[in-house]
């Protein structure tokens, strides 16, 4: 187990380093010199050279990379060429907002998928079970941002019960914070819940066909009792994998949903960075998102090994 953990950790670190090189190299392709762009067309060559030195863009790319990546390792994302403010704290603030958005969406997805998927599997022959399967198929076809627009229409435009957008920090007004996040959470959670329902259903169906479950039934346990006691841990293995993939999808879905509901999260920061041609900021946010996805995959792999010792 420890050897396995070390191996996965090594892969994680190597992937992060390679991803860093890839992101840096990609952004280095960008035409134009940050110093020239910052000073405009009328700048004197001396001023441009001075600014270049201050930005550090006068040095060879490998040195720039070492500087940037070394900074990342202790949370220093550099200083924006455009706004001259440090990038790290901005990313930190936004990361919290996005994390709350994603986790809330995940909780709703699980609250929907586990009961609905289990029910659909246990009752896979009767109409209600089939109806759940059909509903999840439709849910998969609706992107989160479309779900967001529909929810705004129903709850903000028609019922006027919830705000259509905006974000209030929890420290300012906890109730407004909660009300403001309800629709974004639902937009992410409903769609991911639909996807997850299908996986829970097929995982539970697979487990229900196993001999050990039949044995448990034969010993006198009820259908749900046997499933609860012997089935769910086994059924959870494929579901955990999908959950990890979903968390990554949710993170990216959150970028779009933040736009729908005007929430100041990482996605909003990223898109503003692109609009303002703030390279270093874009580079930093992309790196944070990619590392988040890599970390999620790492945790999934390890959880997988804990749940199923055969895989170690």
């Amino acid at each position, binding site marked *: 187990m420890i050897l396995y953990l070390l191996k996965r950790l090594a892969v994680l670190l190597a992937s992060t380093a390679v991803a860093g090189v890839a992101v840096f190299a990609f952004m280095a392709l960008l035409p134009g010199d940050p110093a020239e762009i910052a000073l405009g067309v009328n700048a004197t060559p001396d001023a441009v050279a001075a600014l270049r030195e201050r930005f550090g863009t006068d040095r060879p790319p490998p040195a720039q990379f070492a500087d940037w990546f070394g900074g990342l390792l202790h949370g220093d994302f550099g200083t924006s060429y455009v706004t001259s403010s440090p990038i790290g704290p901005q990313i930190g603030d936004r990361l919290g907002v996005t994390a709350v958005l994603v986790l809330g969406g995940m909780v709703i997805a699980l609250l929907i998928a586990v009961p609905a998927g289990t029910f659909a599997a246990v009752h896979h022959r009767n109409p209600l079970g089939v109806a759940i399967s059909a509903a999840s198929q439709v849910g998969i076809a*609706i992107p989160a941002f479309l779900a967001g627009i529909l929810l705004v229409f129903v709850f903000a435009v028609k019922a006027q019960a919830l705000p259509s957008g905006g974000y209030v920090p929890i420290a300012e007004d906890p109730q407004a914070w909660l009300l403001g996040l309800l629709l974004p959470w639902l937009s992410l959670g409903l769609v991911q819940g639909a996807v997850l329902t299908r996986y829970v259903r097929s995982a539970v169906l697979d487990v229900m066909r196993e001999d050990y479950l039949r044995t448990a039934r034969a010993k006198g346990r009820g259908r749900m009792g046997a499933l609860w006691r012997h089935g769910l841990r086994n059924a959870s293995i494929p579901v955990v994998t999908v959950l990890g993939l979903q968390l990554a999808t949710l993170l990216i879905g959150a970028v779009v949903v933040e736009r729908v509901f005007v929430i100041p999260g990482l996605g909003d920061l990223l898109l503003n960075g692109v609009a303002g041609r703030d390279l270093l900021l874009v580079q930093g946010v992309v790196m944070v998102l990619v590392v988040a996805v890599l970390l999620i995959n790492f945790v999934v792999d390890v959880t997988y090994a804990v749940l199923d010792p055969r895989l170690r």
Partner: protein
Amino acid sequence: MRGRVNAGLIAGAVLVGIVVLAALVSFVWTPHDPTLVDAANKLREPGGGYLLGADKFGRDTFSQLMVGARTTLYVGIVAVGIAALIGTPLGMIAGMTPRGWLSELIMRVNDLVFAFPALLLAVMLGAVYGAGTLTAMIAIGVATVPAFARVARAATMQVMVTDYILAARAAGRRRAAIAVRHVLPNIGSMLIVQASVSFAIAILAEAALSFLGFGTRPPIPSWGRMLQESQELLFSTPRLALWPGLAIALAVLGFNLLGDGLRDYLDPKLRRIRAER
């Protein structure tokens, strides 16, 4: 042995058929010019030649939907094409030499690309080259490569242990010949299923990118941008969001149902290899 034609397959084929038909017809005919700005028809209600009404610029919604279908299919075909052309050979190589260093390298790089979702790639490409249909297609295509490679690898590994491969190797056929003559035809059905599922994901990705302004540029109609433009009018004219939203959902549903139906129909034996989402 083929499976039976199921209801999902038919429903999927019909939905995809409608999208394809709308796109094809839009080349020769649309009720109105979808890009024509006409102040007289601003926010026109449905009826009188404007089946679904017009948007804030007086552009006919139905015509925009038809041409939008074209955009959707265009992006989907190119993106899935890129993914299949790159991912399939890589997956086959990895599957034919599962213990080699090359296989290991391919799968590691694959995992790494997997950490770059289409949206991030598109935003990065957009930041460097300017966003547009081309950058969106390339981003979605590259991000879909790992899914194809994984399915191709899994299917190839199943084929490689069959007797006919053993016979071909015993007969002294070279690896490349075995790959083209024996492996590819036998993993083809899985790849078709994957293509259908990937197409659905590509439609979702294109819609999201256009919604964010990183996809197809105006004035070319696209469903995602129609949604984005409709959002500010959600309080007064919700139908402008309804139609493109419905179009996206039905197209995605169609390709998903088609993929699932094809999996059951084409090759029940290989049903256990899941298409990658």
